[in-house]
């Protein structure tokens, strides 16, 4: 499983998240989000303060009950600003 973080989330996300085994208790995206928050307090405080979108294998996700597979790439996107 590969977790990628952007913007200010990327500043505090640990590098080993780029290649981790799916924890047993993580079955859905909601589980994953909760696990990240428990495992990484600096990410937890940022994610509590700002909306974060999840993208799975480069596809937008609308339902956090979606299951997570062992080889998924899940991106955590804080608010965006281009242009």
């Amino acid at each position, binding site marked *: 499983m590969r977790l990628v973080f952007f913007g200010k989330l990327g500043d505090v996300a640990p590098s080993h998240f780029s290649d981790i085994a799916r924890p047993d208790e993580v079955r859905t995206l909601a589980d994953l989000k909760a696990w990240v928050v428990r495992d990484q307090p600096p990410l937890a405080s940022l994610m509590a303060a700002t909306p974060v979108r999840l*993208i799975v294998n*480069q596809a937008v996700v609308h339902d956090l009950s979606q299951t997570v597979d062992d080889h998924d790439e899940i991106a955590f*996107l804080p608010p965006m*600003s*281009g*242009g």
Partner: protein
Amino acid sequence: MDIRIVTAAFDPQSLCEQFRAARRDAGALVSFVGLCRAKTGGHAVDLLTIQQYEGFTAAEIGRIAQDIAARLSCPDILVVHRVGDIRPGEAIVLVAALSEHRETAFDAVRLLMDYLKTDAPLWKKESGPDGSRWIEARAQDRERRIKADERIA
């Protein structure tokens, strides 16, 4: 439709000229170039760093551009967005539209820029003597995009 994410400095003028020359059925070309400022919100800026989500960013900008082109019946749109390290004065983004008449081209460029400000998967970090800070879309950018959407609908 031409969407490019680039990592090196680009020349907006020559890209616009290539875009224009590719079609003979347009009566209007409108373009906008966003530049890196040397000062924002009272902070001096030495460097602007823009992150993308490789693959996803270009696809999302393309999707947004296709949607706008379809809604406005705009025949052709060009977006060139730079990522990586950018210095003050350099071009960040070029948005251009070709259409039969000017109203459509103006609307397409304005709406696309409004969307890029709030919905493009890009993240900006400004660095200068006061330190570094991540930039988020402002509430007024979101309001502007919503109003522009309502006007076009």
